[in-house]
């Protein structure tokens, strides 16, 4: 996030796009609700009538995957009615003329046709957004789990820059991160193209710096494979060995059948986890790891805040901290690493090598943690990025972006759209929440959420077992008839192995980030 959670409560105008915040980030949602009680205006852009709609003054119920068209339509109005922040655009950004030309191709009527949002509502929405400054934009996976993930994200950024909202408290572009430490895993360089602190592997200076620190002669300069490519390359034999640390790929990735085929083809697979999972079934070696409260360490949250994690109890049996396991493998491959605790790793390596975290040391993390960038030890951290519209890399770039439809759209055979997400009571594949007393009572099985209209059409009663089928598979699952979903949409989660939406989802990916299109594929539903 460019901004902080502390801003949520103080915001005057909030636009939430593709985020089911009260279920996926419940505490963040409480701050938005507080803001509304204090008089803030809330606009929700979502195909579903999520719980937060109760607090909104406007629910823009767009069609799944039409975000770019809608935002282009909004920008069309902002530009034509001269409602955008001209001064900000002139002084802080480049690319306005291209953006304008593109936005002109999306008059509200055209945007309406694609998104299903009435043209007048698009105009109204644009005017409302321009009426209060700054406005805060938040999004989650509704924006990113599409084949046009990058385009969607850039559209959000376009809109906020056009409105002059980036670089101010209670403004900005704010993706809420799903896992506690996705932010951290990225920051640490668990990505194929960057070292810790986002230093590129194809930069010779960066390589030289890390090679020296890690005591090796050279480091690979070619960006590596992203996860979907790794999986694809297992059956082809290009990838022989796969090392899976803590991820339950066999349940979380789209098209389970195909994923399992890939995992099966691995010549050698190592799994490092705290539980046996659907994925560890494919392993050749399973390494038992210490869990969350059995470790000292740090997590980095969505607001770039580095927080401490502390040990409360010992790991069971012979389970060991993950960092120790990696160190031991390195040793057996001829590399002796000096750091011998999470604190030593952070203080002596991470914060020395990543300039944006140079000022963060364990002894400074006793209380509320620090938000990077914190380049020096007397720096208090950065709650708001791009302060006053001064972008880290010069000027903010406005990009002309075209709308493209999802990879798979409904047809005669599969007439409905399946979209997926998370529910309040469980977390991902339930390896953890499923083992906590009480939680399973609150949510004990998967459902397929459908509208009353579709239920009536098919003669399906609430709570009846139905069949949901896509080109990739089918599941039997209980129907939940709800006003949350519009006609034509089926909505499911992936918390349970049975009825897991990923038997159905489409492994189509954004070409740049390889994010899978979990939010849209074509399905049919039938009575059993």
């Amino acid at each position: 996030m460019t901004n902080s959670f502390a801003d949520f409560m103080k915001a005057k105008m909030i636009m939430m796009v593709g985020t089911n915040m009260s279920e996926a980030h419940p505490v963040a949602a409480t701050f938005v609700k507080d803001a509304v009680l204090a008089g803030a205006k809330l606009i929700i852009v979502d195909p579903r009538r999520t719980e937060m709609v109760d607090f909104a003054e406007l629910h823009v119920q767009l069609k799944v995957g039409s975000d770019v068209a809608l935002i282009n339509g909004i920008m069309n109005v902002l530009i034509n009615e001269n409602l955008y922040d001209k001064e900000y655009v002139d002084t802080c950004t480049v690319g306005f003329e291209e953006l304008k030309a593109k936005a002109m191709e999306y008059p509200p009527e055209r945007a309406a046709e694609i998104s299903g949002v009435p043209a007048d509502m698009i105009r109204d929405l644009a005017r409302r957004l321009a009426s209060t400054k700054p406005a805060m934009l938040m999004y989650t996976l509704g924006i990113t789990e599409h084949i046009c993930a990058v385009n969607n994200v850039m559209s959000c950024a376009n809109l906020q820059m056009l409105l002059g909202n980036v670089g101010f408290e209670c403004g900005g572009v704010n993706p809420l991160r799903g896992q506690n430490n996705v932010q951290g895993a990225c920051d640490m360089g668990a990505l194929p193209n960057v070292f810790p602190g986002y230093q590129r592997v194809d930069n010779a200076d960066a390589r030289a710096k890390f090679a020296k620190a890690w005591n090796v002669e050279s480091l690979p300069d070619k960006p590596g494979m992203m996860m979907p490519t790794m999986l694809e390359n297992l059956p082809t034999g290009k990838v022989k060995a796969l090392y899976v640390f803590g991820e339950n790929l066999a349940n979380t990735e789209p098209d389970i059948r195909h994923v399992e085929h890939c995992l099966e083809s691995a010549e050698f697979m190592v799994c490092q986890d705290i539980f046996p999972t659907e994925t560890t079934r494919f392993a050749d070696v399973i390494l038992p790891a210490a869990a969350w409260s059995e470790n000292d360490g740090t997590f980095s949250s969505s607001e770039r805040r580095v927080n401490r994690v502390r040990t409360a109890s010992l790991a069971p049996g012979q389970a060991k901290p993950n960092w120790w396991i990696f160190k031991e493998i390195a040793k057996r491959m001829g590399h002796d690493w000096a750091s011998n605790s999470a604190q030593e790793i952070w203080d002596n390596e991470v914060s020395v090598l990543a300039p944006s975290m140079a000022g963060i040391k364990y002894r400074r993390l006793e209380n509320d943690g620090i938000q990077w960038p914190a380049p020096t030890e007397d720096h208090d951290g950065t709650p708001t990025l791009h302060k006053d519209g001064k972008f880290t890399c010069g000027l903010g770039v406005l990009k002309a972006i075209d709308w493209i439809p999802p990879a798979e759209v409904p047809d005669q055979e599969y007439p409905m759209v399946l979209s997926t997400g998370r529910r309040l009571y469980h977390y991902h594949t339930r390896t953890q929440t499923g083992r906590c007393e009480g939680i399973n009572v609150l949510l004990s099985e998967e459902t397929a959420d459908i509208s009353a209209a579709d239920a009536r059409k098919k003669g399906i009663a609430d709570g009846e077992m139905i069949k949901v089928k896509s080109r990739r598979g089918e599941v039997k699952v209980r129907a939940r008839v709800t006003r949350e979903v519009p006609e034509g949409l089926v909505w499911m989660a992936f918390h349970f192995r049975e009825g897991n939406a990923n038997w159905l989802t489409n492994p189509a990916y954004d070409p740049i980030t390889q994010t899978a299109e979990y939010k849209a594929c074509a399905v049919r539903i039938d009575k059993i």
Partner: protein
Amino acid sequence: MADLSYVIYDFQGGEIMNETFVLDGKETPFRPGQTILEAAKNGGVVIPSLCYLKGSTPTGACRICCVEVKGARSLMAACSTPVTPGMEVMTDSELVHKARKMNVEFLLASGRHNCLTCEANGNCRLQDLAYFYKITELKFPEKPDEDIYPTEDINPLIVRDFSRCILCGRCVQACNEVVVNRAISQGYRGVTSKIVTGGDLPYHESECVFCGQCVEVCPTGALTEKKAQGLGRHWETEKIRTTCPYCGVGCQQWLHVKDGKIVKVTAVEDAQPNQGRLCVKGRFAYEFIYSEDRLKTPLIREKNGFREASWDEALDLVASKFKEIIQKDGPDAIAGVSCARSINEDSYQMQKLFRAVIGTNNIDHCART
């Protein structure tokens, strides 16, 4: 002109406090808009309270915070009375203590406050006040059994013991004004008063989303965590601060630990980012770590399933297999997926293993999902 010796910088509000009032005979600075309860803290005086909940509208329900204000006809509730310049407030007078003590005596008689059997023993504001006022016996007739609502313990996570509810309304404030889940309210009237969900249903059949904020703020043992029952008294547990393992908000938690085992989880008050709040996962989904299903020893695949192995054997196998593949097919034939739930230091080590030891950039994690 205001006496500058009283001009102090208040970090919370970031404003200069240059007005004063008289607190127990001492001139004390305050910020316009502060209540007596808040302003008393500027002078180092903590006025006891039960129903007052920071960040929500004061209800003035319990009258424990009563103070004497010169010129006023009756005692005033400090939590809901704003300070005015020159106001003379007495927090420590005989009249004040008499009134407070009587209030506590009323509350003690309003239910069944037998601390011995109460989960909140040692962590109860009513108990603290009864102790402070040296109350050793009930002064007022106890509420009859038939007027006490039966305890709700059929919902999976929260015990609602109405015999210990003093109707302070903090839970209602928290649910409606802090987390805004709007699941509970003050119901019925007079002696039949009760904190109710819509339709007076048990929590799990209501709008309640089990965030547990009501439990967090309840000053007595009326609302407690079901899973914590009998696992440890408040004074037997150690509090360890940590970060929630679930979503990317990064809520700050207190783990209440006894003998190396988490008894319950509460929120760190005033901490960023969560400011004393948690959700159902952060508060109630912690005991997976003690599950019998945990992987406890390295395992190596055999023809029919897995067999247990020592660390040395398992790690040697991994290292030698990797070396063999690197030699035969090159380092790019190995790929790794790191964990977006584990600590930073683990991800750092894994990418270092892949880049510096194996020699490939084939390292990713599931940020894409």
